[in-house]
């Protein structure tokens, strides 16, 4: 799935696989703070991360990331430079799954509401659904998943 960037109502929606072959340089962006909705990103490989970081650095913009899915959050935790250039994470996803009823859900954690940038967040309460015996639980290990929040600029 090739990566695509589409502008809608002032937000750049990124989707697909971010790899070294993504033609990021062709996307025209404004200066200053630029919002990226990353909810459609399926995977990112190590060269894709490097390309992305290099691109943001070259443009000198301040990226604001919205609805970051698991592949992106995993990279936040592994590659510190992903959050350089005063990057802000406005919201990210925590995937959850209920073994009892098979329900799959993505919880969106919002900056300033569910987490504070620069401050450790060790846990997050998953709201159970109305079904009896609901076992909805996070599908990620919080120890490693929420680690990047400490590195965010306030």
């Amino acid at each position: 799935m090739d990566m695509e960037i589409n502008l809608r109502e002032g937000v750049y929606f990124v989707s697909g696989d971010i790899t070294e072959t993504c033609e990021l340089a062709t996307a025209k962006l404004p200066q200053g703070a630029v919002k990226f909705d990353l909810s459609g990103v399926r995977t990112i490989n190590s060269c894709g991360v490097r390309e992305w970081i290099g691109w943001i650095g070259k443009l000198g913009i301040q990226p604001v990331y919205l609805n970051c899915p698991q592949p992106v959050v995993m990279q936040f935790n592994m590659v510190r430079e992903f959050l350089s250039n005063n990057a802000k994470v406005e919201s990210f996803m925590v995937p959850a799954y209920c073994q009892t009823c098979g329900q799959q859900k993505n919880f969106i954690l919002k900056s300033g509401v569910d987490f504070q940038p620069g401050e450790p967040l060790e846990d997050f309460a998953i709201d159970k659904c109305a079904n009896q015996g609901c076992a909805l639980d996070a599908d990620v290990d919080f120890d490693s998943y929420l680690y990047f929040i400490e590195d965010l600029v306030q």
Partner: protein
Amino acid sequence: MKGTRVQQTNLVVALDVRSELARNNILAVLGSCAVTLRVIGADSSWEDVSSLASLRNHHAVYFTDVIDKAFLDSLASVGFRKLDKVLLVREDTKDAVQDNPLLVEFNHVLSSTPECISHQLILSTIHKIREKDYFGVDKCLAFGAHVHAFTLSNSEERKWFREKLFAFVSSLEAIIERPTDTFAQFALEVQDELLMNAIWDANPARRDFDRGGPVVLAPHEHVRVEWSFDGTLLAIGVRDPFGSFETAVVLKYLKYLFSKDRKARIQMQQDGPGAGLGLYMVLERLSSLIITVEPGQCTEVIATLNLGQNPRMMAKMQRSFQYFSV
């Protein structure tokens, strides 16, 4: 019909496992293997084991659940023709293993619980060494799992491999009875990193090339890709024809996998030269990593993902690591 005679290795297994439950578990598994078995501290002394080294053409496998420096020194001084060292790591022994400099002495570090030793990993380790049959994802899975095998001859084909593997993992949803989104993401990222490693990093002629443009591989550079699923484990194997995987890199990954401090781990990624980041990424997304190197001939990297666990458990579990130099 005349059967093919496979020349087997004479194998001595020295079992030095202190946990009684784990020891009995392994004994039960090894009972079905044609090996000379010595249980240190029970039916054999160390001298008894070391005397086996004097037999010609014996390859020894040493299983333990503790890192004992004196014992490792003794082993080194014995002089088996070849020696594989297997360390079993459980939740309760993990702390003693993490950041232990002697960890690098072991070429097999298998994650286990007292109740559940990975029989599959133990049996496949013994089988590979005894039969001298090391390559292929089929060795890492339950018998009979169908192997999907492909050849990659152009870097652009990675897109096709991504879509094909995505469809394959998605189709497993009915078997594992849970959504496969996270596993598919992990599988795709693992495969892509292993392919990049095989196309560029492993190939001395392409190591420093720009990766932005497509690369057509010559027949002698073709990469073999295998996937298979046995109902629990998904195995992804990538084999390159170079055999250039260095021991120093292997040791780095071992240290990374068994480092306690997450910040130190991130620092290791930053310092990692060449393929560093890519393969570190792989380590975060698998259950076990098996690297087999025939120097100058071939390197196979196999990642297995345990789809029997939920992704949260998979992330928490200590990974297993194996390195075979053949």
